[in-house]
């Protein structure tokens, strides 16, 4: 594990050097242990692909103490098993006004739009972490056959529920925000609800699948 100061009140613990299951499991185990036994100075933890950002109260501890504690927690995680993953199914209406980039993504890869949908909805994805915006889960790994870079200039407003891809990642926009991911479709589910105990439909470590639905089903689910 490598540790760096991120700011005068945060450190970054790096638990791997490439995106993948191995680094993810180490991040998840350390996160869970810090959540179960929070040190008195901890204020926030932000997991990502290969790292954990730890914010602390600098009136209570300095970087040396925080780093020592994180290292001792990390050593203890080796005995822990990763928590069992739950599976989340997301219904998606692909293409049309819901997926304005579907045709272009297909064209880039010399595929038909239906093939892109087939590839996107056949994979089981892993929720590496939530970041960017409330409830926004970074899902991977998107099959290389349809991996496409971000738009060169972001849309000012991506509608809530939009399903996008960027590189080897896919995600659902939980709320209307600016965004540069290429949009393939939209889900009628509300991904983030402040009035729910589990606010985000997807949590870190979950397995996620997308199920193609028709416009009509979209309407029914949206009303239901």
């Amino acid at each position, binding site marked *: 594990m490598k540790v760096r100061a991120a700011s005068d*009140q945060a450190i*970054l613990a790096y638990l791997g050097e490439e995106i993948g299951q191995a680094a993810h499991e180490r991040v998840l185990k350390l996160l869970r242990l810090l959540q179960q036994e929070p040190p008195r100075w901890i204020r926030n933890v932000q997991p990502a*692909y290969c790292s954990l950002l730890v914010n602390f109260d600098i009136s209570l501890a*300095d970087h040396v103490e925080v780093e020592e504690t994180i290292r001792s927690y990390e050593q203890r995680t080796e005995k822990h098993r990763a928590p069992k993953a739950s599976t989340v199914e997301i219904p998606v209406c692909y293409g049309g006004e819901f997926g304005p980039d579907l045709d272009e993504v297909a064209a880039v890869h010399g595929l038909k739009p239906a093939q892109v949908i087939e590839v996107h909805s056949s994979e089981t994805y892993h929720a590496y972490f939530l970041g960017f*915006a409330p409830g926004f889960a970074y899902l991977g790994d998107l099959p290389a056959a349809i991996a496409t870079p971000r738009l060169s200039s972001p849309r000012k407003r991506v509608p809530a529920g939009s399903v996008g891809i960027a590189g080897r990642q896919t995600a659902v926009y939980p709320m209307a925000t600016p965004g540069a991911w290429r949009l393939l479709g939209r889900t009628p589910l509300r991904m983030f609800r402040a009035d729910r105990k589990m606010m985000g439909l997807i949590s870190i470590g979950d397995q996620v699948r997308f199920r193609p639905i028709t416009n009509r089903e979209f309407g029914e689910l949206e009303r239901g």
Partner: protein
Amino acid sequence: MSSLLVESAGLQTTVQDLGRPGFGPEGVSASGAADPVALRLGNLLVENQPGVAGLELTLVGGSFVFPDGAVIALTGADLGATVNGRPLEMWASHTLEPGTKLMFGATRNFARGYLAIAGGIQVDPFLGSASTHVLSGLGGFEGRALRKGDRLRIGRASKNVRRRRITLAALYAFKPRKVLRVTEGPQADWFSETTKQVFYRDVFRVSEESDRVGLRLEGTALDGSTAREMITEGVSLGAVQVTPSGQPIILFVEQQTTGGYPKIANIIAADLHRIGQLRPRAEIRFQRTSLAVARSLWIEQERLLNEPEQLFT
């Protein structure tokens, strides 16, 4: 219960307290007052707990009616507040009679003014905080900036709030600065020595495209090209990230929680509140400091904020 009526809302007026840290795993950034020191001082002036919700007014304030009266204090930027056509002294507590209209104008100095009210603004908390997260439409009053016609509830105030004002020494200690102190960012060593020299020497201008999410800076383009590929990671409040085009961006209270641009520096905790007072076109510089100095500056600032006898007369 007493209330506050929004007669006109100003440019962007939101309900803010000290935010909701701790929800990183859900992708939720802390939000909270852009200048938390000003909000805390306002609350202390009206004998609230320091973290009670007040109003944050941005660049241009609105006008507000207190049908039942209130005890208030104005802190942060001077938005030319008047009552019955007479200027209201800032950084002091005032008792407003029932039916009083409090009017603000455009700022005369900095970016954000705070209206603290004895008893505080009452809204349903979201994740334990009243603060508005404008970008994601969560928290505060209906998850948005105030509009004409909104009526906000005011909590019960402590009895007989003493009339008091802030000391000059305290005002001086918390004054805005043009030189923001930073520690090195986690990717500082990705940038060349020349780039770092430019970063610490040149003046940068806050762009018009700046808000509670982040402040974009204009000036000499830094060499943002890096040989290494950055893997998205957690980003901290006040991080100065450099985009591939070389533009520095300061991540602020409604920041995205993760990002994929290298960070050259991070503004120190004791100067974070000063970011909240930077107006568009403000000119700033960065000054490097050590973790140890940053920590002692923060501890000193907190000590002062916890000693009312030094803060008020």
